[in-house]
């Protein structure tokens, strides 16, 4: 797997239900979302298709950064799909889609995280299905 591949897979010793809760319940999300020493606040987490989420991460020194997006698919405890972008000066930054799946496996859960690098929702919709494949190829080019 190349450094550019944004498919991450982990076997975690916990049932899918626990992991789904860690991703979707604000008080549980706070426990792991932000890097060590960061103060994390969950400003919104409306867990339903079309619902918004918004999280701010404040480092011990320096500027706080806000991430936000919209849930696209909410299928407990199996799958979660949401959009993702940092707030930048002058608006939202580059928006992508994150797909997290939780599959029961011997010893726990196989968690697969894929981040799709589309530029806008409109474009994503226009190219549904082709994204993953297109960007696998792109990653190969970029890795040359």
């Amino acid at each position: 797997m190349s450094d550019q591949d944004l498919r991450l897979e982990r076997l975690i010793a916990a049932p899918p239900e626990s992991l789904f809760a860690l991703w979707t319940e604000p008080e549980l999300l706070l426990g792991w979302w932000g890097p060590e020493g960061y103060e994390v606040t969950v400003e919104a987490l409306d867990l339903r298709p079309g619902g918004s989420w918004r999280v701010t991460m404040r480092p011990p020194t320096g500027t706080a950064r806000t991430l936000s997006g919209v849930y696209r698919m909410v299928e407990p405890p199996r799958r979660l799909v949401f959009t993702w972008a940092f707030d930048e000066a002058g608006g939202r930054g580059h928006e992508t889609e994150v797909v997290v799946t939780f599959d029961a496996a011997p010893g726990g859960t196989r968690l697969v995280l894929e981040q799709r690098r589309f530029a806008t929702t409109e474009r994503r919709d226009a190219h549904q299905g082709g994204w993953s494949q297109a960007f696998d190829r792109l990653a190969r080019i970029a890795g040359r």
Partner: protein
Amino acid sequence: MPPLDTVFAALADPTRLAIVERLAARGELPVGDIARPFAITPAAVSRHLQVLERAGLIERRIERQWRFIRVKPEALAPVESWLARQRRHWNAALDRLEAAAAGMSKRGRT
């Protein structure tokens, strides 16, 4: 340097991505050869090349009466560094998720 959105949008089209891949493999091609593997009109090729040029992905070179197109090797650097940053972010987050999940099962919560 063109914004990341412009670069991603340029590469989001299958024909344009294929053009970039082909140029990356061949180094440089005469303009007339670019469209050869694709069933598209010269006008469509020209539009695709314009989009790729605006995104800073390709450049043109003119040698006497011949016109060539090549990939700008540095063009994909912002894409690469963006991907590397995202990967670092998620790897660190998943480390913490793993620790949080372990803490949860110790407390007997499922």
